């Protein structure tokens, strides 16, 4: 969930009202936000870097507000204030307009060359005119850009936004791609020119920029945007040129957004991104954005940004029935309008026409509109009622059996362990004296540590590790677990299946085979299987590398092998860092369903 950090006093000034922390928390809750933390720059510095570094830092109260991951329109102070003001019916939702250049001149133009095709082929542009920055607005502008980069732009892997002081550059602009050695410019916050190749090594140690280098690092050509005089605007998605940088005095802004071509969604995301960005920077310029033209390598010309409003029609009855309320169409239209979805009753029956603004890309279905109506109505004002759905409960047979056996195993003196389903290859193979290839184990492709290399194929390693972690406890240790292991199985759609097993260990100064054998007899008694060769159960000497030679038996029930019991091999005991003899039983309980 993205977090927006805003200055409290500035927020209240913009909202035209002061709140106590509790009151504001309440307002957030109602609207679906969360006032996560109340802090200050100073407090954050003290926490992160210690008291000394924080000296002289600002004491201004900051609100950190969690915004739902789909509400990109609330990612800056202006957006938040707008949303809340409309919600409180203090303002009307703005209407964003795309306009032609005021002086009747040509729109700014961005020409995309075909070299970009291999690395970052999409670009759109827009222009903001007559902006007056204050320090706060300037910070909010930069902050929003960063928030969009982190969220909808997926850390710049999908889309990158560049902003430039239009009065320092002159169009038409060219978006092309060149070998890194041929690109040379002075980047933001540096005092001299670098080649692109030099920049990549310079930024290797930059705490912020190094996270983006991988996006283009191994490409033969790097994307680059020039103005008509050959001045570099930016090398997306890494860094802008210093020449066109935005300052407090900037009046007119040229915005370019570029995107990779993994799938179509990036173009879609690109269009949304530029929309969001321009819309929320137009609060103080009458919600107007100046169009810009983009020329594609094939000569096609498009005009951006696309500020598309769309209208959906739905009935008041639909909303009432889904939410569980009983409101008139008029009042529902009013509820929706409070959520920046301008709505009107159409006059036909209880139909409502809802206008979806370009900033609400998250609204893709009537159910999204229904949710907004419910939020505006107030989730906690909805009458809670019990559904009349009549059903009879059933337990899953394998879980029912597991629950019953667990109870009786504790009655037999064994204590239940709860171990991880993921473990290392070593745990299920080397340590048990097995070959990994014979385990039928499912392997994980992206484990962060060796603890998550495979799904377990046996419960035994977990139990032995539990004993190792509890060696200080009085002996004997008697543990069991009834849980799932995972085995490859070609007959399943995913190629693997779970298997419910019962495993128990006895750890003491003597191996206690008779104890584990007695537990088998007890379990079979509980399962109502009598001793015997055919319809009953019996054990028979077997060789298994995990067990001590001559001290292992295979368990058969109704003629079918269901597992093993025996005294563990001394190597197994020492590989799990244990020192005492140990006997164990491991059986499949699924045949008893």
């Amino acid at each position, binding site marked *: 969930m993205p977090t927006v950090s805003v200055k409290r006093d500035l927020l209240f000034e913009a909202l035209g009202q002061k709140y106590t922390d509790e009151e504001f928390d309440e307002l957030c809750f109602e609207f679906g936000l969360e006032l996560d933390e109340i802090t200050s720059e100073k407090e954050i510095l003290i926490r992160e870097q210690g008291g000394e570094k924080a000296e002289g830092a600002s004491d201004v109260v900051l609100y950190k507000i969690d915004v739902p991951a789909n509400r990109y329109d609330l990612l800056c102070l202006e957006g938040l204030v707008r949303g809340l003001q409309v919600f409180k019916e203090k303002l009307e939702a703005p209407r964003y307009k795309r306009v032609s250049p005021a002086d009747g001149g040509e729109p700014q133009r961005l020409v995309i060359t075909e070299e970009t095709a291999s690395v970052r082929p999409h670009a759109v542009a827009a222009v903001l005119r007559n902006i007056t920055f204050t320090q706060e607005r300037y910070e909010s502008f930069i902050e929003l850009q960063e928030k969009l980069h982190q969220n909808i732009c997926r850390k710049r892997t999908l889309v990158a936004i560049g902003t430039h002081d239009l009065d320092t550059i002159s169009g038409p602009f060219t978006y092309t791609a060149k070998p890194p050695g041929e690109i040379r410019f002075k980047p933001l916050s540096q005092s001299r020119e670098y080649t692109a190749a030099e920049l990549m090594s310079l930024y290797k140690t930059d705490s912020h920029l190094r996270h983006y280098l991988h996006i283009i690092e191994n490409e033969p050509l790097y994307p680059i945007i020039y103005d008509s005089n050959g001045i570099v605007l930016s090398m997306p998605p890494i860094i802008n040129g210093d020449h066109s940088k935005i300052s407090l005095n900037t009046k007119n802004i040229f915005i370019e957004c570029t995107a990779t071509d993994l799938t179509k969604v990036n173009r879609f995301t690109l269009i949304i991104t530029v929309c969001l960005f321009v819309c929320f920077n137009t609060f103080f310029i009458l919600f107007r954005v100046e169009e810009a033209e983009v020329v594609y390598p094939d000569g096609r010309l498009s005009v951006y940004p696309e500020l598309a409003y769309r209208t959906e029609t739905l009935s008041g009855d639909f909303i009432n029935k889904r939410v569980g309320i009983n409101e008139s169409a008029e009042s529902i239209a009013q509820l929706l309008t409070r959520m920046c979805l301008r709505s009107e009753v159409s006059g036909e029956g209880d139909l409502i026409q809802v206008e979806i603004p370009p900033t609400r890309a998250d609204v893709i279905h009537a159910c999204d509109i229904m949710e907004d109506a419910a939020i505006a109505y107030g989730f906690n004002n909805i009458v809670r009622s019990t559904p009349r759905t009549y059903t009879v409960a059933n337990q899953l047979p394998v879980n029912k059996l597991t629950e019953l056996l667990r109870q009786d195993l504790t009655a037999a003196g064994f204590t239940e362990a*709860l171990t991880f389903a993921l473990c290392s290859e070593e745990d299920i193979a080397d340590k048990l004296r097995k070959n990994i290839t014979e385990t039928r184990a499912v392997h994980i492709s992206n484990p962060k540590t060796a603890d998550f290399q495979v799904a377990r194929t046996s419960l035994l390693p977990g139990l032995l*590790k539990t004993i190792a972690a509890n060696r200080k406890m009085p002996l004997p240790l008697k543990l069991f677990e009834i849980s799932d292991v995972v085995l490859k199985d070609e007959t399943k759609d995913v190629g693997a299946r779970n298997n419910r097993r019962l495993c128990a260990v006895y750890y003491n100064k003597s191996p206690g085979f008779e104890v584990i054998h007695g537990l088998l007899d007890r379990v079979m008694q509980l399962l109502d299987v009598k001793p015997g060769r055919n319809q009953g159960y019996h054990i028979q000497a077997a060789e298994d590398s995990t067990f001590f030679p001559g001290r292992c038996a295979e368990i058969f029930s109704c003629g079918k092998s269901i597992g093993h019991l025996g005294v563990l091999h001394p190597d197994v005991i020492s590989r799990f860092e244990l020192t005492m003899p140990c006997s164990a039983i491991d059986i499949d309980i699924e045949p008893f369903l």
Partner: protein
Amino acid sequence: MADNGLLESVLRLVEKVDGGTDSQDVAADLGVDHQVIVGAVKSLQALGEVISAEQKSSRHWELTGEGREIAEQGSHEARVFNAIPDEGLPQNQLMKMPSGKVGFSKAMSNKWIRLDKAHEGGPRVFKTVEAIEDTVRDKLQLVQKGQSAKLEDKEKNELKKLQCYWTVKSYWITKGSSFSTTITKQETELTPEMIASGSWKEKKFKPYNFEAMGVAPDCGHLHPLMKVRTQFRQIFLEMGFTEMPTNNFIESSFWNFDSLFQPQQHPARDQHDTFFISDPALAHEFPQDYLERVKKVHSEGGYGSQGYKYDWKIEEAQKNLLRTHTTAVSARMLYKLAQQKFTPVKYFSIDRVFRNETLDATHLAEFHQIEGVVADYGLTLGNLMGILHQFFTKLGITKLRFKPAYNPYTEPSMEVFSYHEGLKKWVEVGNSGVFRPEMLLPMGLPEGVSVIAWGLSLERPTMIKYGINNIRELVGHKVNLQMVYDSPICRLDS
């Protein structure tokens, strides 16, 4: 235990004095070691109210074993001096004496002896004086006679350094409420013979110590997290919910994400969040018609939806993973439900899910998800809140409120908060929502059917219930077995 003769001697002494006597005086009178009397006092105390004995610290000085040895045999240095004949003694031989080392250095500093290092045949020790006065021994003999008052404080301290003194604890003994000078033997336990002969009627029984703990029963113990799981299962069963088959940890991306209308670029599908499987890497079987409908609703929309407008790829859907939520199973169950004539259902599951996340004190790579699902015609958001209210009431949580939230496959989505009386604030206890039509309609469920669902983790309520701060002490092999042995039964509503 001291023998009865001694006990009775002690009692007779106590009888003679009014107001009590000190155990050290008793020891002196009876001519036995003080420790023997201490043992006798303890034995008498165990007989009930025969005597009362109050422990006190005594100023009385007494010699330690070493002190007694010195009083009898002389100080170490004196013993060394006396061991040296006129012709001297080789140093190495002297050092072999029990008092050798300590005595040699002390005698040297007293200038009683000298060492001739250059002596032929190795270093040799000679006497330097004819006779000595062993003052240490004399002083200790004074102490032994109970005349330590004759020593000056400085002298006492010197001897203390030699560890020859200690303070002792003694008892002030007075008559008890049932004082008697004869000892009646007390029985410890009732025996079958006593019952048979009736002799128990005449016997006195040793009182039990009710302050002590009993003997722990020899038994096994259920794991606390599993105890809580059993209770949650019970609650769902009481509410008429049927258990879903969640015994499939390996899932395809299709059922884990695509069927839930979670787009293929969603960050949850990233390597950083999800464990993908390298073997078996791909799922190979899908309901083909349904797969086509899922593809369409993602890429083009439909069922009243705009869709996500991207190229949906089967390769992405085939990728196997460790399921990140049990909702993957709910999707399979709802699809199965849609393939027959619709009947309303209530489903639940409690099972493991896996996240490739950063681990900390409250997060592990695997945890248990509790999930409830209801499918019926015309279910409302109010119904979801109603059923959540019933569910949480069974957990002992009655004050609930709901916050709008975002979840890719539910709309509306609500976070469930409950008022925590201890913390005096609202805390999140679960997530809930109504499944999106883009998820349900491609499955083939009838248009009017709504599916409401909620979920929470099993670990969090368990940690709160049992007061555990570090999840590793609860789940996995690093569990503290003592905690498992000691954990009480689980009643969630009390």
